[in-house]
């Protein structure tokens, strides 16, 4: 019997969206927005999803179909309007491009802030962790001491990925971070994801590349218009995704 890690029941998420592009009080009055200037735009529609412990789930779908919103809902950042989202394992911060990074600060400072935010900060282990991050990301100490605004996109992805990975998360959520790394690093990341998976972690992986999803995940879902249109093996989801473009 597999243990349930995440359960979404009839989850609907809508964004409070500014009708007619009203972002200032001037527009608010001129465009007659007095009667409810905001409208709800549905992003996720009655999502039912069960994810078991140790499972690896790939999410594919076109841009703007609700992939990142789904991740954020699972991470507890977005509270659904309807339905429930139960997570019974420890969530680590979302791994998305540039998420949670402060460009003015150095890499080292960002690692420390990340540790504090994820509740893993400990004076004794921080040094080891930094060494691990440096080793895995192949960023030298000199580079880690530079402010992030001097980093390239690939270096940012390396830093973010390595920082999250060295903490041995129970639930790993990856939102298209691999896409920007170079080939060598991508391979390294995939290997590391498999290691984390073997250690018992649950992995949710968002990507545009069905082949990558196939490589990393066993199970896959495909999102369209906020609905799950396919839930099966990662290969099925990949096929469904490719069909979207025919």
């Amino acid at each position, binding site marked *: 019997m597999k243990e349930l890690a995440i359960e979404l029941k009839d989850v609907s998420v809508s*964004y409070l969206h500014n009708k007619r592009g009203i972002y200032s009080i001037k527009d608010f009055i001129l465009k007659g927005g007095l009667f409810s200037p905001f409208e709800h735009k549905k992003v996720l529609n009655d999502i039912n999803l069960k994810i078991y412990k140790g499972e690896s789930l790939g999410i594919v779908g076109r841009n703007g179909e609700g992939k990142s919103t789904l991740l954020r809902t699972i*991470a*507890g*950042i977005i509270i659904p309007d309807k339905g429930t989202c139960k997570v019974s394992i420890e*969530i680590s911060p979302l791994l998305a491009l540039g*998420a949670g990074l402060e460009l*003015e600060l150095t890499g080292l400072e960002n690692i420390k802030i990340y540790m504090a935010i994820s509740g893993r900060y400990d004076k004794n282990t921080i040094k080891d962790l930094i060494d691990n991050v440096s080793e895995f990301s192949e960023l030298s100490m000199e580079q880690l001491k530079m402010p992030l605004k001097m980093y390239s996109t690939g270096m940012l992805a390396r830093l973010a990925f390595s920082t999250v990975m060295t903490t041995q998360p129970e639930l790993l959520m990856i939102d298209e971070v691999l896409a920007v790394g170079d080939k060598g690093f991508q391979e390294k990341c995939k290997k590391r994801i498999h290691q984390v998976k073997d250690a018992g972690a649950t992995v949710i992986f968002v990507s545009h590349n069905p082949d990558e999803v196939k490589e990393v995940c066993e199970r896959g879902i495909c999102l369209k218009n906020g609905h799950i249109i396919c839930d099966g093996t990662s290969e099925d989801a990949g096929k469904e995704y490719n069909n979207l473009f025919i």
Partner: protein
Amino acid sequence: MGSKTYLIYFLIYKNLQLKYKHSMLGFVWSFLHPLFYLLVFNFVFSKAFSNIPHYSLFILSALIFWVYFSGSCSQLSLTFIRNSHLIKSLNVRKLLYPLSEQGTELVSFLAGFLLFIFLMIYLGMPINLNLLYIIPIIILFSAFTFSVGLLLGSLNVFFRDIGILWNTLNPALFYLSPIAYSLDIIPQQYLFYFKLNPLYHFFFIIRNVLYEGIAPSFIQSIYCIIITMVSFLLAILVYRKTRNGFISNL
């Protein structure tokens, strides 16, 4: 220390870093900024208000708190917007961001305040045990400032003109608050409106302590406590009402 305390500590550290990263004088600015105002006011108004003894001290005692107030409010009004990348990717209580912002402002206020104590002594500040009253006053004033800032910050997410409006009204509020003048010069019929300004009551008890060297007036202290409580409840209410909409509007 819990990891939440660490987080606040790091956010404050981060804010301070960002604030003074590219400035050579760094912390000293929290001292220089009010000092500059003081010099200008002294120059412009000292003849007009020659009936106020120790006029420099009179201005300074309220001025440093004004700078703290207006600085905090404009920082806090942007706090959710500036931290949007964190809000979108981390599941931590959003209230931590304005809290750490207020903490940052408090740290730089206190650093400046310590220097100003020497200047105020030089300008004739009475030194006695009543000075200790300034500690609870600073705490109360910080809570009030935080409330105003949180209110602005929450609304600013939805309408960016709240921040602009605040910066526009800021100078007006400055001149309508009794900082460089005392309420004695205000005609009787307008006095009521001046007293509607919450800052008036705070400056009253601050001057009691720092300028007159007496214990803060009981009735004015009660006013300040009520003002703080009401604004705090209002701010929390608005924050709770709006916080779930932050993500879609950031």
